[in-house]
């Protein structure tokens, strides 16, 4: 990774949309002085604080944990707080993620996304009486679904998926990642139910293994591989597919 510092000018083109006054979205150019080690979110903050207070975008933790600031940067979904100016070049295009209704500027409506997330029942389901201590699990059993626990629900994968762009009703990669997290958890008993949901018309089979999701994930989850595992579990009728 480049380590160049020093101030330089970033030309940033932002897709603006304010439904109360704009008939349709338009592009606006900004020039910002930024350090190489600044993050894109810092650049956006500079615009908001110093040039145009109406620019609207979500951010909260600013450390890649909360998943608030997924947006489309130079055509790829990224977290603005995990992207260094060094890594994006002098000309940047920033727009809201595709596949989501835009509320304003870079802020998209996450409600449909969370509705689809809830569809796969992303919580522990176990009908046995709760034990007095923890439900124990071997390190290997824990490791089986470790990768999919890392999801921060930023929506970068779902917003990068052409199947989602074509069919907004499809559950999308993020939901399947979170289903995977429980389907392959030895403590969970809801696998059959989730696989029933995901074996349906808007379930896993709408995935065409395009791999945009894996490329987009800011947590480095191999999203497409996780989806493939759920597919195989449904196909073979068992989670013992390795």
């Amino acid at each position, binding site marked *: *990774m480049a380590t160049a510092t020093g101030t330089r000018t970033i030309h940033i083109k932002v897709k603006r949309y304010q439904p109360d006054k704009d008939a349709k979205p338009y592009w606006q150019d900004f020039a910002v002085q930024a350090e190489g080690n600044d993050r894109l979110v810092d650049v956006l903050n500079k615009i908001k604080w110093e040039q145009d207070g109406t620019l609207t975008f979500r951010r909260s933790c600013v450390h890649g944990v909360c998943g608030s600031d997924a947006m489309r940067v130079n055509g*790829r979904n*990224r*977290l603005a707080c*995990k*992207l*260094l100016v060094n*890594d*994006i070049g002098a000309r940047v295009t920033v727009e809201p993620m595709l596949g989501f209704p835009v509320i304003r500027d870079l802020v998209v409506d996450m409600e449909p996304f969370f509705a689809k997330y809830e569809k796969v029942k992303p919580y522990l389901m*176990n*009908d*046995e009486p709760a034990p007095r201590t923890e439900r124990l699990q071997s390190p*290997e*059993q824990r*490791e*089986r679904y*470790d*990768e999919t626990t*890392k999801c921060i629900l930023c929506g970068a994968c779902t917003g990068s998926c052409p*199947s989602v762009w*074509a*069919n*907004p*009703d499809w559950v999308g990669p993020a939901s399947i990642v979170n289903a995977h997290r429980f*389907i*392959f958890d*030895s*403590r*969970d*008993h*809801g*696998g*059959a139910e989730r*696989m*029933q949901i995901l*074996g*349906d*018309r808007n*379930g896993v*089979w*709408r995935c065409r293994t395009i791999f945009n999701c894996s490329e987009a*994930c*800011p*947590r*480095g*989850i*191999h999203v497409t*591989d*996780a989806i493939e*595992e759920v*597919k195989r*579990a*449904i*196909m073979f*009728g*068992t*989670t*013992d597919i*390795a």
Partner: protein
Amino acid sequence: MATTQQEASPQVRRKPRLVAAYGSSSKPTSGGWETFSWYFLRVSGVALIFLVIIHLLLMHVINDVSATTYCFVVARYQNPFWRAYDLLLLTLALPHGLNGLRIITDDYLHSRGWRLVVQSGLFLSLLFFWLMGSMTIITFQPTPGVCPTTHTAMVSR
């Protein structure tokens, strides 16, 4: 942009046999229709690669198109193997293609009503063309006296 991709633990998914599913309830009951449809597309796709290439070679490359006449078919269909071959080709290719179209309508037609109309149309055309095709393949008999009998020996291989 390497910075965004660094965090996952590498290759945890490939560990074999780590799931001890409690009881039967964590196992899926069965795949259902969409799963079958997906599986059928894959399996028929693999079979069709060979079936279609052999068909194309026989009908368009090894035998010139001008030679694949009525009498060519008469000669070919003396051998039940080719009838079975064509029936298999028809039975795999037709649902493969129409199922593909059905999936495209699932992707792009968002109105329930239109989907119902188009998918019913697809299903009916599947039924119609499969019946027509398989009836022809199974019941085809040459019109007597049209083709010289020697033709038979010439082209059936």
